[in-house]
């Protein structure tokens, strides 16, 4: 696995960890708070969240409603600014949502091409690169279909190809499979895992499906709700390839669920 170390935007000194060719963490969230609104109506969405995500790590974030998961992703994506604290990201960021959010007037390939175009890839190279990316998610045969001619799972794979077309080093996924049926979701778990590792992506995957988190994550971070705080972190020491129905994955999911329920109970009347 070769990783190009890029200069840190925020000026945090890069440190080398022994035994791994990795410098600064891919994402460093340091003491981040986010407040929306002012005065009496202000809402504290995130409260002093600190989190490092290693290069190539697959991090899952789980939490109940109102834990600020999406806010956190927006901060990492640079779509919003933290009220307090800093977010440092190494490399390019791409964001995926629950909806594939493909542009309906563009074909699958053209959607990927737009990402390339906005990255200033020369026109002559776009089509070929887009087809390469689509074959990475095994949709090369559907390059000229429009989004409405594709299934929900296929659309999410086009969205994944588009994210890769952004040249992403860090992939942020906001409940990307929440709207898919169970069979498609299982297969896409395998698929996104494969693509993430092949492409050496650092992934932050937000979900409220604890099993999904245990199936995919190297680590699971549990956020508390209102305000969002890091309530607990769980390692997932389960060998890959994993199956979502395996006892090891289920055991970890059960642990996380117990803790998640505790968090939810704290908000009872």
């Amino acid at each position, binding site marked *: 696995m070769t990783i190009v170390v890029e200069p840190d935007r925020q000026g945090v000194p890069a440190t080398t960890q022994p035994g791994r060719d990795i410098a600064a963490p891919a994402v460093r969230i340091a003491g981040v708070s986010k407040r929306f609104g002012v005065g009496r109506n202000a809402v504290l969405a995130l409260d002093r969240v600190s989190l490092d995500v290693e290069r190539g790590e697959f991090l899952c974030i789980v939490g109940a409603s109102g834990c600020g998961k999406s806010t956190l992703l927006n901060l990492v994506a640079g*779509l919003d600014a933290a009220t307090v604290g800093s977010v440092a990201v190494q490399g390019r960021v791409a964001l995926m*949502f629950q909806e594939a959010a493909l542009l309906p*007037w563009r074909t699958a390939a053209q959607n990927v091409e737009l990402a390339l175009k*906005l990255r200033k890839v020369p026109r002559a190279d776009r089509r070929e690169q887009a087809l390469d990316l689509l074959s990475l998610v*095994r949709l090369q045969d559907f390059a000229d279909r429009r989004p409405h001619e594709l299934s929900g*799972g296929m659309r999410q794979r086009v969205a994944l190809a588009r994210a890769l077309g952004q040249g992403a080093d860090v992939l942020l996924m906001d409940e990307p499979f929440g709207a898919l049926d169970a069979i*498609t979701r299982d*297969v896409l778990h*395998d698929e996104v895992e*494969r693509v993430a590792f092949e492409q050496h992506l650092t992934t932050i995957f937000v979900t409220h499906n604890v099993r999904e988190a245990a199936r995919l994550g190297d680590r699971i971070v549990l956020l508390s709700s209102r305000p969002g705080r890091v309530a607990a972190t769980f390692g997932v020491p389960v060998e890959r390839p994993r199956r979502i129905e395996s006892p090891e994955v289920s055991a970890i999911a059960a642990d996380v669920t117990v803790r998640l329920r505790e968090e939810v109970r704290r908000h009872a009347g």
Partner: protein
Amino acid sequence: MPADLATAPHDRLDQELSGLDQLELSTVAHRQASLRIWSALWPKLFAVGLVLAVWQFVVWREWKPRFVLPSPADVGSVMWDDLFTAELWRAVGHTMRRALVGFAVSLLIGGAVGIAVTRSRVMRVAVGSMITGLQTMPSIAWFPLAILLFQISEQAILFVVVLGAAPSIANGIISGVDSVPPILRRVGHTLGARGLVLYREVVIPAAMPTVLTGLKQGWAFSWRSLMAGELLVLIPGTTSLGARLQFAREFSDAEGLIASMAVIFVIGVLVDSLVFGQIERRVLTSRGLRTDAH
């Protein structure tokens, strides 16, 4: 994370994905082109036939004398003869020129106002509701003022046509831009599109179906205003479809009158279905928004 992960279960995953893809895809067969055209055409022909039948029935019952309400056949033969006169085509040409100029000016003005309103909060508050007000105002109510301002002239007609069509066009643009799904703007933003690029790549294409509806409505309003104008503003020495209606009435030429009305109707329908219908069809089909596709 183990390095062999990427290679081990590849084939299985490959098969599962392609299996799912095949299962999910719709298997709607496309119908033959001739069959498609026929199925779109026959209800229209049937409707026309029904109208002619009712008309003929009323004529047979002799509700009104023949010289006031002629039969479809009489009108048809007058129309057929008219088709070979330069007079009719000169009138059609003049009317169409007015319609095109009027629509083009409406497009410029309505477009500029619509874009200005979507870009600025102040403009929206100031003229947003005024545009809707203008849209509901019957264009014929503008004619007295138009005639005062421009006398009996082409400008008077143009003035009213533009006032009829421009608000619809502006409104189409405004609601088109308003209706762009926020998720698409957001995705454009995450892809790095800002400002004009965001407009070119996301906002304008996403707004297109609604903008088209506004254009279509704008055309309908401009065509109506134009006919009202041609009836009221008779410019000596020029002929037009409206003028033909007016002269036919003055000479109690019922066949000629209804024949001219039919021409006006046919032009309105043709522009609507051939010009706007085709564009709309293309735009909607490409987005999967047509329910009656295939």
